[in-house]
Structures are given as structure tokens and as C-alpha cells.
């Protein structure tokens, strides 16, 4: 299955096209999507940890559509980057760790989202939510680091 994916013309195009619109643009969009996704997620985490704690949580509703945009861009570009070398990446430990961390980070957003949309929280959130915020910060840090190191660890 992975080797079939690697032989598709899309994979070939991503690997070998000299065009600036092939791999370079996909990579750059993946980086911009990362900035939006991780950066926005961290802004919400900072608020949950008490930075600007008198700002009502409901004011942070904007982060969810923004996160959705970042997540969508990076899912599409991420799948494309994976298709480029599926046989090596599909079995590479740093890649699998990265995927696990991304899923974990996005998973922390689900309970946080319902909390923000409910918007009946006072300035301080519960201890569990603060732990979620810390988990989110650490998981994104790990995911970004693993993603960047992929370039060095996986040929």
C-alpha cells in the first residue's frame, strides 16, 4: 500500500518536479499553517494558564475557526509531504512520534473548546483545564521539534 502510494504520479511530482509550486510551496504552506495552528493554540493555552485572566474566556471564541484553518492547511500539505516518501516515513520513529503528539495536542482542544463555548467560567479555570493547557504546550513543542528533526533523522 505504501509502495503503491510512492509510485503514484503525485508522489513523483512532489519528489522530482523542479517547479517552485511543487515541494517548496507545499513545505512553505505547511510552515505557515504550523505558525497559525501552534501559535493560536498557545495563545489560548496562555490564557488558560492565567495570562490576561480577567479577559472572559468567551472572547477566545475566535481561536477555533483560526485553528480549523491552520489544521486544514496542515492536514492537506502534511498528507502531500507524506505521500512523497511513504515507505521511509511510514516506518520512521520520529514521524510516528510526531503524529502521536499532533493527535494529542488536537485532542486537548476538544474539552477546552466546549469550555470556551459554554463561556460560564470565571477568570480562573479548574486545575484539570490548566493541566490540559500545559499538555497542549508540551505536545505542540514536541510535535514541532519532531517535525523539524525529521529533516535530519529520516533521509
Amino acid at each position, binding site marked *: 500500500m505504501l509502495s503503491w502510494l510512492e509510485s503514484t504520479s503525485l508522489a513523483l511530482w512532489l519528489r522530482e518536479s523542479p517547479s517552485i509550486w511543487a515541494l*517548496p510551496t507545499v513545505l512553505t504552506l505547511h510552515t505557515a499553517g504550523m505558525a497559525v495552528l501552534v501559535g493560536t493554540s498557545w495563545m489560548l493555552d496562555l490564557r488558560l494558564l492565567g495570562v490576561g485572566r480577567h479577559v472572559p474566556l468567551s472572547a477566545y471564541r475566535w481561536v477555533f475557526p483560526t485553528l480549523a484553518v491552520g489544521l486544514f492547511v496542515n492536514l492537506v500539505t502534511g498528507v502531500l509531504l507524506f505521500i512523497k516518501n511513504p515507505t521511509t516515513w511510514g516506518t520512521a520513529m520520529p514521524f510516528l512520534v510526531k503524529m502521536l503528539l499532533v493527535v494529542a495536542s488536537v485532542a486537548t482542544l476538544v474539552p477546552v473548546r466546549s469550555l470556551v463555548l459554554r463561556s460560564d467560567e470565571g477568570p480562573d479555570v479548574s486545575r484539570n483545564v490548566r493541566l490540559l493547557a500545559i499538555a497542549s504546550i508540551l505536545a*505542540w513543542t514536541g510535535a514541532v521539534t519532531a517535525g523539524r528533526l525529521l529533516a535530519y533523522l529520516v533521509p
Partner: protein
Amino acid sequence: MNLAHLHLVMNHVPTVGSVVALGLLLLAFARRNEHLKHVGLEVVFLIAVLTLPVYVSGVAAHREIRDRPEVSEDVIKVHQDAALVAFTVMEFAGFVAWVALWQWRRRGRAARGLVSGATVLLVVALVTMGRAATLGGEIRHPEIRAAGAALALSAVEGAPAGDPERFMTSAIGQVAVYSYWAWPAAEAVHFLGLALSFGVLLAVNLRILGVMKQVPFADVHRLLPWGMLGFGANLITGMFFFVGQPGQYTASTPFYLKVAFLVIAGANFLYLTVFGKAWAREGNHGDGRFDASLADKAMAILSIALWLAVLYAGRMLPFLGRSF
């Protein structure tokens, strides 16, 4: 005009600029004029921003003249080390000046220690910058060589001639090339810093554009130091890349585009920190009545566009140029 020429034109900005900024600050202290202090700090910040292209163009100038027989490589390297020290002090001065300006906007006044701290750092920057400038002048003007410069060179000449680590910039290059972890680790930090500073800029600029209107401007303004933290991490790691492997950047067009975008984005960041009615403290009723002006909204859009351009030029370095 080539890059060596550009360096000759721009290298006066940090030296002369520091004198002007120091004059403004000292005058402000003498007259107890708070407004003048504010102006002085803004000038310090802008000079710190403009020092980046001065350093970068200097390294490019090195590439253009090093093969000439009348130019001594050691004299250039001594100048380069002095310039790196001066650049670092100048960036610290700019950073402290920025924190003072940020506090000013937030609380109506800056902590007194910060303004004095920025002034002291500026004096150190001026001294180190003056030394770098003198050593730089001696590259093509041996007739001005002074006793101090001879000392700087002799300290270096004490080391064996072939020792690649006798110059600070070369030692950093050794780490960049031979350390297994340094470069990848710096790349990872560079991406984390990118995400942090972009998140802050997005929150601040979206607020100016009218998202989360019920939140007072001051509450997003207080996020700015987090953005500065991310930017600081990226300035340090970015300079590590540039000092460590200058050759691959000095020959790269997207790299110069990135530096140019950074300079404009730096000026824009100063605007976000200090200017605009949008940030007026008396306007913070938190009831959404206080909308940003059209000019502020244009600056917010420009800010996002500029930082995306910095990101684009940086990520495209291996593809539009040949660096990595």
C-alpha cells in the same frame, strides 16, 4: 551599488545613530522631559533594527573583497568579531528600550531602571560599535591604524596561525559545521519561536481588525512580550545560522529579501507597540466602542503580510537560493 558599497553606506547608522539617541536621552534626563525619553527609546529600537542589515552586508562585503592582495584577512576577521560584539550589545539595548516602550504604553510610564538600563547599554553599544567601526576603517586605510588596533591583532596573533578558533566568528562556524546537534536543535528552536511570535501577532492584529471587540486593547497589548520572546529566540538561532555558515546566505537573494522584510516588520512592530489611537489607555472601556482607525487596521494587515513574507523568504531559502 554592490553589497560592499551598501555596507559602507549603512555602517554609519549604528555609530552616528547611537550618538544621536544618546544625546536625546541625556537631554531628556537633564530636562526631565518624558516625551523626549520616549523619542530617544524609539530611536534606540530603530537603530537596533537597522544594525541587522549593517552586520549582514558587512559579511557580504567580506566575500567581495577577501581575494584582493592588498586586504588582510586577519584585519577583516578582527573587525568582524568586534562587529558581532557590538551587534549583540546593540540588540540588547534595543530590547531593553522596547520593554520600556511597552511598559510606557501599558502603564503610562516605564520603570525608571529600564530607561537608565537602556541608556547604559547604549553607551556600551556606542563604545563597542566605535571600536568595530575603527577596526573596519583599517581594512582599507592602514594609515589610521592606532595602537589599540595593533593590540587587538596581536592578541589574535598569539594563537597559532592555522587555529580555526582564534576568531569568535570562526569558532561559531566550527560548532555549526562539526556539531551533530547544534544546527538541528537551533532549527527546532527557530520553528518554535516562529510559532510563538506569529501566534501573538495574529492575536494582536486580529484584535485591531475587529475580532474580539469586547476585549480591551490593553489586554492583547500585554501579550506582546511573549511575541518578543519568540522573536528573541529566532534572532539568536538565526544569527547562529548566519555567523556559522555565512557563505550560503551571502550568495542568496531570498536571504536579503528576508532581512529587508525583517527591517520593515521591525518598524511595524514598533508601531504596534507604541502608536495608534487603538492603544490609548483612556479608550479601554471594554465595551467595544473603541474601534481602531483605518490607519491602524492597515498597519495590522501589513504586519501579518510582512511576517508571512519573512516566513516565506526563510522557508524558501533552499529553493529560491541554495542555502538550507
